[in-house]
């Protein structure tokens, strides 16, 4: 069998109907666990910690409640009625149920109609951007006018594991619609995937496992680098054509290094680099970084967002900010406002909030 040349038109994902973001909203829980507190308990070295602190969901929070918060913020900015949505999709690796969707609970809670597509997406840390690609497909094909994609996590880090320093809670919601109504047009998307087992959680396992240094070079750097450089070259753009860039951020160093390799300056990534202050929000990480950028972006500016999901793959999006952004930015709490809403907790409280203490 040979490949029909007409079935490979190009590498980019570009919709027939021009599509953009009409509303977005972040949510970050208020509790913060300093990395040095984890180091204190586990005898870790306080020099070179991967982040300063991480955001932790409270006792009454999970991916569903946090998704609802972010979705309400996105609806406030979009200015549409929830019944106008044709899809509500949630990407996460910490859905409260293994079987039973988060998406339907969120949809019901925000007042979406029953005549929608809903479900959950799973692709480690890029589950959220995978939902975004699907929303781009739905809106861009004309199947629906508005589609909602959420990336949200309450990430699991095994006590004592290196991931415990960074595994955090938070994420963001995006509503896609016609580009003409949007605050930022999605000029193109691109997905790059391979079978690379760097990080996984098997069925019934409480905590994920990872291949330590294997998560770097052949996993994160290979996929994020390929994804970002391909979308830029296919679009005929280079780093200097962008005002902002945001990459999946499992820590502080990885996104800094890949940004440098791709030719971006520290100033271009500073606004969206939240992991030092909130940790790695997994499926929410790139999306909540983007929401911080949209909070301050100006019409005409161009943004690159590149996610990463273990297993492994990376989605890239190129956004061109449009005029309506200025009036919509203040219609919901900004990302930095959530980061500023900060209550430090100690390790014991963290264990209690994360249900790590056995009580029965």
């Amino acid at each position: 069998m040979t490949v029909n040349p007409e079935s490979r038109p190009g590498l980019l994902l570009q919709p027939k109907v021009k599509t953009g973001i009409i509303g977005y909203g972040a949510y970050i829980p208020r509790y913060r666990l300093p990395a040095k507190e984890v180091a204190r308990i586990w005898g870790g070295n306080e020099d070179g910690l991967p982040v300063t602190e991480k955001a932790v969901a409270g006792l009454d929070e999970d991916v569903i409640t946090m998704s609802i918060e972010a979705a309400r913020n996105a609806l406030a900015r979009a200015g549409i009625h929830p019944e106008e949505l044709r899809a509500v999709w949630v990407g996460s690796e910490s859905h409260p149920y293994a079987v039973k969707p988060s998406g339907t609970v969120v949809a019901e809670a925000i007042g979406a109609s029953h005549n929608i597509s809903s479900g959950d997406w799973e692709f480690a840390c890029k589950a959220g951007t995978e939902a975004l690609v699907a929303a781009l497909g739905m809106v861009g094909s004309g199947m629906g006018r508005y589609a909602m994609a959420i990336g949200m996590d309450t990430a699991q880090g095994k006590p004592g594991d290196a991931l415990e320093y960074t595994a955090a809670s938070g994420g963001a919601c995006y509503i896609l619609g016609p580009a003409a109504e949007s605050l930022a047009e999605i000029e193109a998307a691109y997905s790059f995937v391979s079978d690379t087992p760097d990080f996984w959680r098997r069925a019934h396992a409480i905590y994920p496992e990872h291949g330590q240094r294997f998560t770097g070079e052949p996993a994160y750097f290979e996929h994020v680098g390929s994804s970002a450089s391909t979308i830029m070259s296919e679009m005929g753009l280079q780093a200097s054509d962008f005002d902002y860039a945001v990459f999946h951020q499992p820590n502080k160093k990885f996104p800094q290094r890949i940004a440098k390799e791709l030719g971006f300056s520290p100033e271009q990534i500073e606004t969206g680099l939240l992991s030092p202050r909130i940790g790695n929000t997994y499926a929410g990480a790139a999306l909540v970084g983007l929401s911080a950028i949209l909070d301050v972006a100006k019409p005409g500016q161009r943004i690159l967002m590149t996610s990463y999901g273990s297993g492994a793959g990376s989605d890239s999006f190129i956004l061109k900010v449009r005029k309506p952004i200025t009036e919509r930015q203040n219609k919901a709490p900004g990302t930095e406002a959530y980061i500023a809403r900060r209550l430090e907790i100690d390790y014991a409280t963290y264990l209690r909030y994360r249900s790590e203490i056995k009580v029965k």
Partner: protein
Amino acid sequence: MPRSSKPQVLIAGVGMLPVGEHWQQSLRGLAVQAIRLAQADAPAMPRPQAIFVGNMLASSASHQANLAALVAEYANLVGIEGVTVEAAEASGAAALRQAFIAIRSGLIETALVLGVEKVTDHPAEDLDALIARSLDSDYESAIGLTPHSQAALLMQRYIAEYAPSSEALGAFARISRSNGAGNPLAFRPQPLSAEAYAKAPLQVPPFKTWDLAPVADGAAALLLTRDDKLPKPLRQNALRVAGVALVTERLALHDRPDPLFFEAAAVSVQEACRQAGIGLADLDFFEYTDATVLHALLSLEAAGFAPRGQAWRLAQDGSLDRYGSLPVATMGGSNARGFPLGAAGVYQLAEAALQLLGKAGACQIDHAQRALVQSLGGTGTTAVTTILERLA
């Protein structure tokens, strides 16, 4: 120099792969590439009659026993004699010893010595447990001791007895890293500053991160021949194995009367020198085992280059530098080149060969006629000491 009537054993070709995390390569792939490089280094050599494979963990880490047969097949050497030699981290050097015995005895004329190890697919804690199999299983590894923790206990004792300064200990890693900066195959190619060493976290107290050689994947090969079978054009590229001795010591640390002295290392140096008919003063450099800084210290003292408890002074007074009186780890040692466990001994021998042939590039030392190469398995449990010398 006295020469017996027995055939001389020469190294005719060497091959080494970069040491590192070879995630994209198989165990057999690494092995075959190293063999091809050694064969390309000695193109006129006939097909080797035997292969001696030095490997420590293929059975457990790669689920592969019968390694020599596998490697021979993939190296297009089906049918030759082949066997795997295991002596923990000294496996590669022990394989050379077996090849040396076979050729010197007159039973065979040519042999390949291969060191190969592929372990970085395993998470660090799993790998530590595999490496700990080289200790006494019933009395040491069963209670959680690993080679690193065992060396750390000895290091604490050494510090209590002899009070070396922290800077002096750090100088060993810095010498290796400085030498390794010129080695294109090195896993840690950057030099190490005194500040960076001082700031480094404790990894296994009292060892800092940089005191420990990083375990990595690698493969290296040597092509051996008896002297009268060496094609004439290859003579300028060949070296003599002037002596090689393998000595073992009590496995468990608690059975040793004097744990701060590497007895097997000491005896093997004496025996190798006796075979070569030389003394310590005739040796130009020392490729020692620097699995940890403790190994480096006790190796220098066991060989007799420093009195007991005083080897740390050598790293401070410049003796061990590239142009000092006794250069060590001249291409970075395991600390900078990387530590491919059972393959490490073959790397040491191949590196010493490059130095003696003047082919060490940016790592080249001056006036190297004769090399002392020592591989230690475990905490000095198996010691293989080899003396290589130039033909003319």
